[in-house]
């Protein structure tokens, strides 16, 4: 990440779609001319999608956990009522 903290805030705002129209067009002009800024944007998009996968995997694992707990509860109930 070569961008300054200030530019990083702009990058964050840009990928989250939070920049005003004027700021967005100004920023997009900079992206055309500033190679490092453009590279940081590409990196940030990749990192962002990876974080999304990580967050979604946690939810899938949580659901798998519920199923395992339910199987465990059924087994205990079977033992108790045998």
């Amino acid at each position, binding site marked *: *990440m070569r961008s300054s903290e200030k530019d990083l805030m702009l990058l964050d705002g840009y990928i989250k779609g939070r920049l005003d129209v004027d700021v967005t067009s100004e920023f997009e002009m900079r992206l055309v001319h500033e190679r490092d800024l453009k590279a940081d944007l590409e990196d940030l*998009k990749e990192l962002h999608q990876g974080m999304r996968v*990580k967050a979604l995997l946690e939810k899938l694992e949580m659901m798998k956990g519920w199923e395992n707990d339910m199987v465990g509860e059924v087994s205990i109930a079977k033992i108790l009522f045998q």
Partner: protein
Amino acid sequence: MISVIDWIQKIKTNENEAIKEIYMLCKSECLQWLQKEYNCTKDDAMDIFQLSIMILYDNIKTQKLKILTSNLKTYVFGIARNKALELHRSRQIPVTDDYLSFVASYVIDEDNNVNEDQINMVCQSLDELGDPCKTVLVQYYYHDKSMDEITLMMSYKNADTTKNQKYKCLKRLQNIYFSHKQKSIKD
């Protein structure tokens, strides 16, 4: 019956409970339906169902779903139907021990600018980065939490400390990711 607006609101305040609520509401009916209508095995039906709930959640988080004209159950069944047809067409049966590529494929379908290798490398980099950085970044970028919310969650001193921490964490993640990228080019 859960009201859609109430449920979407609940996802924002108590997401795990909200997911469990809809999961339990749809599960048995959806599993039976997938097995009967799409000849899915019990395991495949379960994978498709859980993936459908995950997609519902993602659609709300990414704001693709803001208003719903049908009820939530119909929406989940619609996703499950599409996934079942997709899996039948591609003959790609969900591999129960490879959820990473399962979820990665879903994200790649939505954003063609990333590929599976990149996603795998980011996930690996996030694991190497570890906590608290991983949590700070995922909360900020995916869950869209504000600096104040993350400050409270992580018990940091104030929002400025959190902002600084987030910047350092992102730099560290980017460095780890960059080294993985370089390595993959050499290999």
